[in-house]
Each structure stands twice: as structure tokens, then as C-alpha cells.
């Protein structure tokens, strides 16, 4: 039965008429499902096939509004179906449904053509938000705890809920615009009753796609509210280096070397950055 449920639906949201080996599904279903006076075996099994796909597609639809806007509503459904066909849920919670979407988009980029790179950036960004929302946290380090350790010996870990992203598009601004538009549309809807299939978008004005530009983002939470913060290249390099396990001194050298900023007081700049990250509770002990 599970094999039947995981098989994608037809374009009209029905169960496929033939089984994988070419037999008629009516015949396959009748082997193990009883008919009743109103529905034959095929129709009864189809209820479950449809419910499975409506549920998982709705979940991705809600979790990935940005990716939806990048590829378009219709194409998103095809992409999501292809993704879930290759990677059915491997977790007890629907929260993890998108946990291999980035991997899938790298393996099968044609599903997001012609905006493969933008789609990949957006999928990474939206998954980082899932992690930031309810990912694990560790007790943050207070400045006093590390006061006596010299930077050449000090190693810091970053909060597990914090994701650092190097992106090729300003997907943060784009997603804010998408969500604003969705909120406006939702406010205009009188009912959220579902029709004969999974959720489908309302016609709306297309938001201009972001231009290609390097963006460094930290996706995190503070007081249990989700935030995304733009980082400078130097900041991003220091944080990713720390996350890799190098000392604070080495991380700072890597950050300054990578940065294109000139004529600045680096000691003051680095102190400001560390103060800011520390106040956000990003640092914790290495376990």
C-alpha cells in the first residue's frame, strides 16, 4: 500500500491508472482493498494516495513561499512532486520535509530552470529559517568567561540554530516582498476552503527578481524571534572560520585578509563585531 501512496498523482490529482509493472491499478487495488456499495477498490485507495500528496505538497507550499515565487506556482508543484518522489519524508515530523531540497536542486537543477542559482539560494535560505525557528541552542558564552584566554588559544563555537550563508542573490529582500504580498492576498480571501487539490496561489503581480550580487547572511533567532542579518565579507569569513574550529586570532586574520575594506581601524572594527555577535548570543563553548 505504501508503494501506491508514494506514487505521484496524475495532473488532475487522481491516482495513476497503471501500476509500475504496467498492470491496471484497478486490478492491483482489488487484490487487497475491498470495494463497497459506493466506491470500488481503486477509488478507496485513491483517497489515501490523494491525501498523502495533498498533505506533503501543502507542507512544502507553506514552508517555501520564496522558492515558489522564484520558479512560479505551477512549476513549484512539479518541482515539489519530483523532489518528494526522489526523497520521500525520512522524518517523523513534517518540519524536516525540506531537509534534502538543496541537495535535490543541485542534483536536478532542470526543475528550477532558468533560475537554477536563484532557486538554490532561496531553498538554502528558507531551510536556514526552519533551523533558526526551532533548532537547538547552547548556553551562550558571556564575555567574562573568555576574558583570560588569549585570542591565539581561544576557540568559539556558534549556536547550532545559526546559519551563515554566502549567496549570489539578495534573496532576503525578495522574500520580504513575497511574504508581504502573500499577507495582502490572504487578508483579501474570505475563506481558505480547499478545492479538489493542494493549495494553489492566487494570481498576483510578479515581484521583480533580485539582481545577481554577493550577499552574506546570518539567519538566526533572538528572544525566539526569527531574524536575518546581512554580514560584511570580513564578518562572514571570521564567523565561518570560527565555526570551522580555528582560533579567534586565526579567524580574525582570515577575515581581515578576505575583506576589501581599506583605511579602517581593524581592532576597533573587530571589537565592534564581536560585541554585536556576543550580544546576540551567537557564541557558545565547543563541545
Amino acid at each position, binding site marked *: 500500500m505504501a508503494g501506491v501512496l508514494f506514487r505521484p498523482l496524475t495532473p488532475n490529482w487522481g491516482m495513476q491508472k497503471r501500476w509500475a509493472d504496467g498492470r491496471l491499478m484497478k486490478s492491483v487495488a482489488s*487484490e487487497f482493498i475491498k470495494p463497497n456499495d459506493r466506491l470500488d477498490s481503486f477509488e478507496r485507495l485513491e*483517497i489515501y494516495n490523494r491525501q498523502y500528496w495533498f498533505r506533503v505538497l501543502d507542507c512544502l507550499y507553506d514552508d517555501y513561499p520564496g522558492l515558489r515565487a522564484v520558479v512560479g506556482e505551477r512549476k513549484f508543484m512539479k518541482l515539489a512532486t519530483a523532489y518528494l518522489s526522489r526523497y520521500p519524508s525520512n522524518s517523523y515530523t*513534517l518540519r524536516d520535509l525540506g531537509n534534502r531540497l538543496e541537495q535535490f536542486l543541485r542534483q536536478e537543477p532542470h526543475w528550477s530552470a532558468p533560475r537554477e542559482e536563484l532557486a538554490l539560494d532561496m531553498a538554502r535560505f528558507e531551510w536556514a529559517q526552519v533551523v533558526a525557528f*526551532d*533548532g537547538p541552542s547552547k548556553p551562550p558564552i558571556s564575555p567574562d568567561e573568555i576574558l583570560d584566554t588569549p585570542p591565539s588559544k581561544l576557540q568559539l563555537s556558534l549556536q547550532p540554530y545559526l546559519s551563515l550563508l554566502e549567496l549570489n542573490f539578495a534573496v532576503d529582500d525578495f522574500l520580504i516582498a513575497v511574504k508581504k504580498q502573500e499577507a495582502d492576498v490572504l487578508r483579501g480571501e474570505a475563506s481558505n476552503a480547499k478545492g479538489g487539490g493542494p493549495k494553489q496561489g492566487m494570481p498576483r503581480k510578479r515581484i521583480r527578481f533580485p539582481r545577481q550580487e554577493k550577499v552574506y547572511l546570518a539567519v538566526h533567532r533572538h528572544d*525566539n524571534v526569527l531574524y536575518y542579518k546581512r554580514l560584511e565579507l570580513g564578518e562572514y569569513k571570521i564567523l565561518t572560520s570560527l565555526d570551522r574550529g580555528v582560533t579567534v586570532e586565526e579567524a580574525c586574520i582570515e577575515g581581515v585578509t578576505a575583506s576589501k575594506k581599506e583605511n579602517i581601524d581593524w581592532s576597533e572594527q573587530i571589537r565592534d563585531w564581536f560585541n554585536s555577535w556576543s550580544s546576540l548570543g551567537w557564541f557558545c563553548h565547543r563541545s
Partner: protein
Amino acid sequence: MPANAFNGFTDYGIGIGLRVPHYRHILAKKPLVDWFEIISENFMVDGGRPLEVLDAILEQYRVVQHGVAIYFGSADKFDREHLKRLKRLVKYTKTPWLSDHLCWGSVDGRYTHDLLPMPYTMAVARHTAEKIRAARDFLEVPICVENVSSYAEFHASEMSEWEFLSEVVELADCGILLDVNNIYVSSQNHGFDPYDYLNNIPHERVGQIHIAGHSKFEKYILDTHDHPVLDPVWKMYGHALKKVGNTATLLEWDDRIPTFDEVHNEALKANKFRDQQLVEAAK
């Protein structure tokens, strides 16, 4: 039964399902609710807002955990990580009992996120009961299994659903979360008398009751939990109360969720209805 081994010898009244759209209202207004049922999996997370909300709820209310993903009927072995997380939550919430469904939903590590019916055979009953016992021993909390609504039946079944439920709970020595709406939905889809179901289960094992709304389609009924409780279900609930006594009851509303006040009013209606039924039963 008002208090029994299957609900931790508690005598809870009418509860409401804790749902995201109501968080703000509940935390701000602190409405009078006897207890909240939480979906365990929604709070088996490592941090963030869900746990903050749970902390605030636990400060004010009694909470009972209801799961959707143990899948006692799946052929797979338990996901140990899942059970460990569940146990952490059980200790945290101090839930007096824990419920999940009499169903399967995963195969070879792939999850359907659905509550799928099983073939009603003795072999399946024994397998399911063994898993319920194992889960209870690990989690160290009483377990009630909920009858699911279904839309298909298997040729392989050897007994009725209520006979299967009875076999499983006797073999597992566990409780029943009697979902009256699910019985109604399945009875309409499969053409059996729902009162045969209500009359022929071990009533002393019922630790909790669910009532909910459903949606009627041309050829079948779907268990959508997106409406108020409908008349046939109220009538069955009354009958169930007479059979099992004053039992903790949860009003479910999971889709097209209205305002908290609307759900609360439905719970108050259930409270009044229950009192009337129990008075009548005592006459």
C-alpha cells in the same frame, strides 16, 4: 471511567487542542480551560518559540500529550531517536497519560504522515500490541491508543475493527482513546452500525474520548476536524458516556481553525452536554 490506570488515575474534564493560531490569545487572556492536548511532535524540538510557548502553557494549565507518529502498526522497528525525544517531552510535561493512533504510517524509514488502517488479523494485533508494550515500558507512562477513521478495508481482515481494537488493547494491557467521530466516519464509509462498535469494546479501558467535526462528500466522509461536532456524533458521545462514565474528553479542531472563543464555546457546549448525559445516566 473517571479515573483509571490508563489515564493515570486522573479525572480531567473537557479539554481543547492547543493550536498555533490560538497561542497569542491563550497566553494573553488565560481563558479557563480544564486541560490542553498538545501534539507531541510539535514540541519534540530542540529550542525556539515552540518550547517557549509550552513553558508558558505549563505554568498555567494541565497538558496531555497526543502523538501522530509512533505508528504502533508499522512493521518497522521504532525510531529510537523519536522515542528518546518523546520521553524527554513526557518527563517535561508530566503528562499523566500519552495517546497515539492505532495505525501504521511508515515503511523502511519513509514516512507517509498519515494514519493508515491495518488489516484486522491476529498476527497484526499481536505485533501492534508488542510495540505498544515496548513503547510504554520505555516511556514509563500509561498509553491510550486511538481508533482512526478509515476510507478503505482490506480483504485480509479477519475481524471487525472493534474486535481488533479490543484484541490489541487486551494484549497490550493499554487504554483506549475512544474517538467517537472516527467511529462515525468509518461506520458511514464501511457500512457498519457505530453503536455495535461502542457497545462491544472493553469500556473499562477507555481513558479518554475525542469528539470532532467531519466533512461529507458524495460517496464518503472525510475526518477533517474542520467543523463543529455534528448531531450524530453528539448522540454517540452521549451513548459512550453512559457506557464508560465521566471520561476526559477532548474537542478537536485542526483545520479551518476559527477563533479561540468559538472553539472554547464548543468545548463549553460539550461540558454542558456531558453533565446532562451523566445526570440522565444516573437516574
